Structures are given as structure tokens and as C-alpha cells.
């Protein structure tokens, strides 16, 4: 059963929202919520040129699936998560989370939950290339695998 309600993908290619949206759509759903994370042109006061995402793929897939399982236990939704890795230009989409649900509240909540949770337990790292240098975006408090 579970297998039909969740979908995850990690890809070096441009993300296609319609894949996520089609997966979560159903004639019994009244709501579709989509979150897209986009590469910004600045970070703190740095002017960002582009980003690179790196992942520990088998574990990242496993953790994305775990998040989806958590979600479908909490809410009556279908969920699809697409994460891009590799080099991303400004304005490109790094993350798409889509939920489809009979009612809107649960879809929006599930979407928000997943985005928060991805930061907590999914081993994907972001390197920022800006004027004059590059830096791995690391937050000592950002990773809370046991929470």
C-alpha cells in the first residue's frame, strides 16, 4: 500500500514539477501543495554565483523515504520529493516537495513538515560559490539525526 503513496528521486537533471504533481494527484484529492526550493542570488551578504549539491545517495534516498513514511502516518496524503544534486545556477530549483490530499490543511502541513525534516536527516550538502571564494553551508545545529 505504502509504496503507492510515496515517491522520491535524486537527480542531476533539471527537476520536473509535473512528475511530482502527477504522482500525488488523484480524483479524490481537493488539494495539491507544492514547495520549491530555489537557488538564491545571495546568502547573508555574499553575492552567490552558483551552487553545488553533493549527496550520500543511497542513504539520502533511504532518509527521504523515511520522511515520506513519517508523513503518510501522520496525514492522509500522497507525497513526492525530488532533490537535485550537482551544479545549480541562480533561479534553478534544488528541491520539489508535492503533496496531494483530500483536504487542504493536511497537505500544507505535510509539505511544511517534509521541508523541515529534510534539513534534519537527509545527507545532502550545499557548496556556495560566490565572488571571491566558496564555502560549504554547514550549520552545527542543522543536523539533528536523533531528534
Amino acid at each position: 500500500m505504502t509504496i503507492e503513496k510515496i515517491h522520491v528521486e535524486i537527480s542531476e537533471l533539471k527537476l520536473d514539477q509535473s512528475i511530482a504533481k502527477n504522482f500525488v494527484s488523484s480524483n479524490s484529492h481537493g488539494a495539491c501543495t507544492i514547495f520549491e526550493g530555489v537557488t538564491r542570488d545571495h546568502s547573508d551578504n555574499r553575492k552567490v554565483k552558483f551552487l553545488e549539491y553533493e549527496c550520500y545517495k543511497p542513504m539520502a534516498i533511504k532518509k527521504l523515504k523515511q520522511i515520506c513514511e513519517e508523513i503518510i502516518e501522520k496525514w492522509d496524503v500522497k507525497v513526492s520529493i525530488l532533490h537535485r544534486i550537482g551544479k545549480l545556477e541562480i533561479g534553478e530549483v534544488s528541491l520539489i516537495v508535492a503533496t496531494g490530499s483530500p483536504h487542504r490543511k493536511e497537505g500544507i502541513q505535510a509539505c511544511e513538515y517534509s521541508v523541515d525534516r529534510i534539513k534534519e536527516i537527509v545527507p545532502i550538502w550545499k557548496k556556495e560559490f560566490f565572488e571571491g571564494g566558496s564555502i560549504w553551508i554547514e550549520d552545527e545545529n542543522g543536523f539533528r539525526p536523533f531528534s
Partner: protein
Amino acid sequence: MEIEVLFFASYREKAGVKSCTFEISHGSNLKGLIDKIVQKFPKLHSDPSKIVAAINEEFSDQSQILSEGDIVALIPPVSGGSK
């Protein structure tokens, strides 16, 4: 026994390798392995007890005992996606 260790992102750059095989004695725990890793690559972390690691793709406490064939990955802190 031999344990394969994977390095990612900033750890990969600091270690200068993507993976490395370490020889540890039977019964060693993750902490013992991490101490060995940091001895070899001191730039990795000033406080090895704070390194987060996964054994076979699951986050694991440093007290966990390692077994033959385990794959250990050092997991740098992340701040993925958009804030």
C-alpha cells in the same frame, strides 16, 4: 578487521579522499574508529566526539560496536534546501 569509511562534502575536501579503508580490532566501537580517522586526518574536526556518522546508512551513536563489512560514512553538518 577492515572497515570502509566514506567522506562527503567538507570532510571529503579536508581528508582529500572520498573513501579510505581502516584496520580496527574486533569489538571496536564507532568512537574508536573515528579517533583513528581523525589521527590520520587531523583537519577533519577539532573535537572527534562531535562527529556524526552513519553505519550502513543509519545514523549511529559513537558507542555502537562495528562489525566486519560495515560501511561507515562521516556526515558533516548540513543546511540543505532553502532556509
